[in-house]
């Protein structure tokens, strides 16, 4: 059993501060949906509004098609996994897991059985009688998931639950979370500021900034077709050029900059003074001779070896630092520092985008 969630024109104010501005999103039943954004962007506020700890100032939240306005957290079919997990330190693991059943009056034998079942599901058999303090970080994580699953929620809400873990474990738990979500079919709403996490796990991602949802799309689209400069910068690296749009026609335009005029795709709302040209470093090509279009002469200033790829930085004539990434597959020669080379890019791989959508705009 899982449910979809609809946010319609949801706003949330704290005093004069608008934490969430006009959020609209339809999350499908059984979907793994992530809200991605820097701290203070309003993603946690959205989560707390869905779980019922905060009431929206305006707008409607529907869970499974039903308006949940006025329902307390304990009356909603959601289960929240807290950033610090909030396991009860004075209860053994199995009581933690079945606390939600205990408060609904389920008898002890049934609870105990359910706890064992859930511990098996999260791959922690035999931990039932341990205390919270006896578990490792990853194990606590699993207990928190089991505790949330025990109440058979239609929606699981996860507030950066992996942020306290070290890198290796975090990557392992990503796969684990994804697997548990597929196994149970419950709708997962995941909050994170780590774009790798969001892109790797989610069916769809909502990128947020300053209280606004900037873009909702699947991970591939978010990375490849960001709608604005904020999304482009938040989910990856870019070479950014400032300039002005010339002759827009058919989704393509010329872009006049201090380094010459480039041709690139024109984003839908790319108007006004905040418009810039974005190119990913891995789409920036390095060559000895100038390319026929979109080419900038550079002097190589730094080469850093990153393992799978090599990052090459060069200074353009106006002093701007540009980065190109070349794959470490043995095909390319690594340039020497001080060498005069050219960086260029395909117009289809470059986008002219506006700044972020701003709250209140």
């Amino acid at each position, binding site marked *: 059993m899982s449910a979809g969630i609809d946010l319609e024109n949801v706003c949330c104010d704290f005093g004069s501060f608008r934490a969430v501005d006009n959020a609209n999103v339809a999350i499908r039943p059984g979907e793994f949906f992530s809200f991605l954004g820097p701290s203070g962007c309003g993603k946690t506020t959205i989560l707390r509004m869905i*779980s*019922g*700890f905060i009431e929206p100032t305006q707008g409607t939240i529907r869970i499974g098609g039903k308006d949940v306005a006025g329902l*307390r*957290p*304990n009356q909603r079919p*959601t*289960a*929240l996994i*807290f*950033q*610090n997990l*909030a*396991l*009860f330190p*004075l*209860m053994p693991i199995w009581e933690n897991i079945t*606390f*939600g059943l*205990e*408060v*609904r009056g389920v008898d002890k034998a049934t609870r105990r059985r359910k706890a064992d079942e859930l511990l098996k599901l999260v791959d922690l058999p035999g931990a039932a009688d341990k205390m919270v303090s006896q578990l490792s970080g990853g194990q606590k994580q699993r207990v928190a998931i089991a*505790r*949330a699953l*025990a*109440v058979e929620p239609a929606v699981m809400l996860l507030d950066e639950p992996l942020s306290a873990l070290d890198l290796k474990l975090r990557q392992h738990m990503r796969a684990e979370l994804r697997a548990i979500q597929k196994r149970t079919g419950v709708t997962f709403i995941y909050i994170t500021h780590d774009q790798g996490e969001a892109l790797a796990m989610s069916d769809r991602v909502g990128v947020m900034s300053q209280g606004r949802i900037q873009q909702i799309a699947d991970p591939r689209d978010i990375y490849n077709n960001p709608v604005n400069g904020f999304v482009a910068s938040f989910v990856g690296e870019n070479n950014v050029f400032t300039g002005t749009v010339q002759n827009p026609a058919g989704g393509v335009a010329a872009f006049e900059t201090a380094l010459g005029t480039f041709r690139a795709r024109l984003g839908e709302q790319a108007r006004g003074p905040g418009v810039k040209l974005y190119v990913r470093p891995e789409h920036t090509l390095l060559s000895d001779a100038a390319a026929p279009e979109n080419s900038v002469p550079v002097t190589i200033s730094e080469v850093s070896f990153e393992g799978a790829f090599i990052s090459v930085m060069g200074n353009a004539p106006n002093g701007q630092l540009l980065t190109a990434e070349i794959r470490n597959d043995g095909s390319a020669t690594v340039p020497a520092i001080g060498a005069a080379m050219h960086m260029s890019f395909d117009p289809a791989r470059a986008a002219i985008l506006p700044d972020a959508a701003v709250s209140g705009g």
Partner: protein
Amino acid sequence: MQDMLRRYGSSLTGAFVALVAFWLLVLVILPNLTLFEQSFRPYLPVVDVGGPKDTYSFNNYAKFLNNPVVWNLFGFEVTVPVHLKTFLSTVFFSGVVTFITFLLSYPLAYYLAKVVEPRSLPTLILLLFIPLWVSEALRAFAWYIILTFNGPLNAVLVGIGLLDKPVRWQNGVLTAYDAIVIGLVYTYVLFMLFPIYGSVQSLDRNQIEASEDLGAKWWQTHWRVILPHAKPGIASGCVMVFMLSAGSLLVPSVLPSTSSNWFTQTIQQWMLESQDWNTGAAYSFLYILLCTVVVALVMWLFKVKLSDIAK
């Protein structure tokens, strides 16, 4: 110890140890040993001290079991020694005071720790602290004025028609100790409030939200999450209030009824009126025993350590 020597050198360490030794030996241990020793000696005129009559015995303790009186205990008439009756009444009503202060304090502690706006918290705490700075004698005296026969409480209650005629509150409506209990609750309620506040405050708010999110009703959250966490604070508050109540001399003396007697008053009579310090010592020692039993009981009941209680 090695560590101290390394950090502070021998002369400073010596000074620290000497200070602590003076405190614990001269001010705590030796006086209590003296108390214990004196409690077994008879009360004699100065010339006889050290003479043939000055022998150890349990005579002073035996006085505790003298003078039986009839005690109406919930409808049953029992004959008990008068001082035992006083002792048991003191223990019982101190327990009542502890219980009432807990009931009054817990919601308030929770409110201060988890509900109130953080901005107004320091002001509220300060307001709560002010009565603590007013002398205990005066706080008890305030209730003496309120409860007196021609006092404001009777005036108000008769005035609004709740009472037909003034009541002698100090003589007790339910028991002879009503006024004393009222005074003790008023005097010591903050000693319950602050430890509980401290322990509730240290609870992570996420724990409460997790409990609510999992479907617990408010009382289930309190019973299963907040109260267990607050246990050390509650234990501390209970011990403090019980000890202070049982050990209070001011409140029972300022707010007595014709038939109330607090055990501290009995000790005071031996010490200052009869000038029989030896019997006073024996009774004091019984008090120490009571305290030890109560502290041990609370530590066992609440499963807390001594360092949790004395904070």
